[in-house]
């Protein structure tokens, strides 16, 4: 697999949202708008790349029986670092994403990639894998966020194109589930055609 393929497989073949069906909680909760989805995706990407690299580096020295707690501590550390950095330098987005920033620790994608890829590959390859899956995740979140924002608030990336409100159900719980369900069907149809 070429280095480039390592990155792009996270977009379609290993898309965490529509194929692996991982990381559902932040996907549904933070996609009330395109910007929110994008930010959450990038935050997860940050943790994914760093933790993949760290896990790949220490994997040979970690005894098998304790590898889960060890990986969890590493992931939790990078999530806390992200928390502090966001609190200090992007406070508005920190408040918007709220609880879901520390919850990146239990985002199945991060631990999943550490288990499935990072502990068996080189540091560089693991970083690229984290980048690819992270970008795929960011893409899915942004698209879902764009659709919910367009239907629910009548705006694109904050730019309103209608006066008044859209179909408010889409920025709330029911709309999230509905949009994700239909997007999954659409994605699978497109992916199968390729």
């Amino acid at each position, binding site marked *: 697999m070429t280095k480039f393929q390592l990155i792009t497989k996270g977009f379609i073949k290993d898309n965490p949202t529509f194929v692996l069906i991982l990381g559902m909680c932040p996907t549904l909760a933070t996609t009330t708008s395109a910007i929110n989805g994008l930010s959450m995706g990038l935050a997860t990407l940050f943790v994914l790349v760093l933790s993949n690299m760290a896990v790949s580096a*220490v*994997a*040979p*020295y*970690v*005894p*098998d*029986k*304790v*590898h889960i*707690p*060890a990986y969890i*501590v*590493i992931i*939790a*550390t990078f999530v*806390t*670092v992200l928390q*502090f*950095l966001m*609190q*200090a*330098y992007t*406070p508005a987005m920190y408040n918007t994403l709220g609880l879901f920033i520390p919850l990146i620790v239990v985002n199945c994608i991060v631990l999943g990639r550490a288990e499935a890829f990072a*502990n*068996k590959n080189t540091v560089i390859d693991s970083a690229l894998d984290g980048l690819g899956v992270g970008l795929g995740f960011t893409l899915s979140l942004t698209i879902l966020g764009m659709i919910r924002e367009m239907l*629910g*608030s009548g705006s694109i990336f904050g730019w309103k194109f209608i006066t008044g*409100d859209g179909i*408010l159900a889409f*920025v*709330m719980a029911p709309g999230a589930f509905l949009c994700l369900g239909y997007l999954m069907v659409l994605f699978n149809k497109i992916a199968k055609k390729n």
Partner: protein
Amino acid sequence: MMAAKSTLKNMVLCLVSVCLVCSALLAVVYHVTKGPIEKTNEANKSKAVALVVPGFDAAPVLGNVQFDGKAYPYYTVTKGGRVVGYAIQSATIGFGGPLTLMVGFTPDGKVYNTAVLQHSETPGLGAKCTSDRKFIDQFKGFDPSSKQLAVSKDGGDVDAITASTITSRAYTLAIRNAFEAYKLIRR
């Protein structure tokens, strides 16, 4: 890649070193970001206060009053040494959850302005309490001693947000409570 052997010594060594390194890294990042984080918190508080009181030139002074088992933190703001306003934080329960307001009073007992600090109201309905200018502006200069702080449905002088009576009631109650706190402060 083969992992190290799972002997007790190896497991303990590995976990302890991982925890130590991670804690050290976190301690460093924590101290580096502590300053900016505190500055942002202070800026947010000042922004909320500045929204609801007339212009001031010194840092707002924090105080606290209590009644009915509730605490009301408030900020006294001064200009040229004279008190020009009080920003009182008042919380009630709205339709979807807690509703927290910052209510600003001028020394003559009138409401200067109000701002929502936090709410869980329904988008498009109660959430209009942050954007509906007609609703918010009616509280500017409102004199609670001569007009009734209740929605018109309850016999008061406040026009509720269309189809959001509960949110409007909660909002008005928060201001009413803030006024009680204000009276305590001025005593």
